[in-house]
């Protein structure tokens, strides 16, 4: 069985739906940080059957709530001196600045580098999250 060491300081993102780990990796732009990162996919899980896990060493300052656009069940574990000091589930953000692009091809945010795409939560139910673009009012849906 594949084994990966624990981390001394940093963050462990757990309970990521199997197959979604890579999306989380890209959403947090982990390919651009200067710190050790491990992405584990299809790890056995009592609750989920299979899950993905990401471990990031020596860095904790991320916008974790943005991950709820990928999976609202992700848990964040903050590790300090080999101990878990904080554990929480990602929360659906009211506002998103940057991170995602407006899907409206006529939206100014897709043309002007000055502007950061900005979205506000429009609606939420058990299955779908909806955000409205602050500039063009286009609605973007995310499956929960």
């Amino acid at each position, binding site marked *: 069985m594949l084994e990966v060491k624990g981390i001394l300081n940093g963050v462990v993102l757990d309970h990521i739906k199997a197959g979604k780990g890579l999306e989380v990796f890209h959403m947090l732009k982990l390919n651009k940080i200067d710190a050790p990162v491990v992405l584990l996919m299809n790890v056995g899980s009592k609750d989920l059957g299979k899950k993905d896990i990401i471990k990031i060493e020596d860095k904790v300052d991320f916008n974790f709530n943005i991950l709820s656009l990928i999976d609202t069940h992700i848990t964040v574990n903050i590790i300090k001196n080999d101990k878990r000091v904080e554990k929480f589930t990602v929360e659906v953000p009211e506002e998103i600045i940057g991170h995602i692009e407006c899907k*409206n091809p*006529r*939206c*100014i*945010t897709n*043309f*002007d*580098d*000055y*502007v950061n795409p900005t979205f506000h939560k*429009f609606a939420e139910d058990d299955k779908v999250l909806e955000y409205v*673009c*602050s*500039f*063009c*009012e*286009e*609605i973007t849906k995310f499956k929960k």
Partner: protein
Amino acid sequence: MVSIGGDKMNHSSLRHLIEPEDFTKEEILKVVELGEDMYNNPSKYSDICNGKILASLFYEPSTRTKFSFDSAMLRLGGNLIGFADANTSSAKKGESIADTIRVMGYYADIIVMRHPKEGAPKLASMYSEVPVINAGDGGHQHPTQTLTDLLTIKVYKGQLENHTIAFCGDLKYGRTVHSLIRSMARFNAKKFILISPEELQLPSSLKRQLKDQYDIEIEEVRYLEEVVEQIDILYMTRIQKERFFNEEDYLKLKNSYILTNDKLENAKEDMIIMHPLPRVNEISYEVDDNKRAVYFEQSKLGVYVRMALISKLMEVGPYVRG
């Protein structure tokens, strides 16, 4: 930031009009009422913008809106600068909207902007030190058309509240429809009737917002004849060929949405017919002589409501401070 000369407005009082919701219901009503007074007594206001400059930045062509703003500013005694085509501006060289707006704010006291990209005027307003008016951004908003429509309704129906309003034609992409329907909802419309082919129905998100937020009755039908006797205000829009996937569908449907006097046989005597113009063929020329047709007067009223809006945003005339 160092302020260099001029008498620019205090930043805290700086207002823009990017979408109708930027104004409260009371503010909209006041602008509409002032527009009505300006229409009736234009000489009272002929010099309130003396020495002021309006910059019109039209990144895509427009006839009525551009000249309507020009006419409004000139009738208030002000002056004009600007461009009517992005090819004659530095946008062609790749200048960002933020840079253009920062500089134009030093040359003019108010900016009117039309842009093909949705949200561009909002971006402009974030960097502007003078008021910005959205004169149309792609298929998104066209708030001064909405003010024009509201003034027309006020002049011809006496009040903005409690009307049954039918919207006919392209309700999916028609920005004038989206803006007006939301504004009329704020003014307690009695009922909305939506007349369109299935392909061009009002977006469901907007329908949901109208139902959830305002609890207004909405009836959707395919043809005008089914509902014509109920209507107080008929708002016509153009069905554009390019909105259809194939020409066959377009040809099949387009005649159903051309307004003729026959289709108005059972209409109320005091119903009014509005249209944001330009008209292509969706209102037959014979309807122009129908007493219910007010779409040309609507264009005329657009000048006066824009005069009222300029006064408000520049805090001149009846809006002067202190």
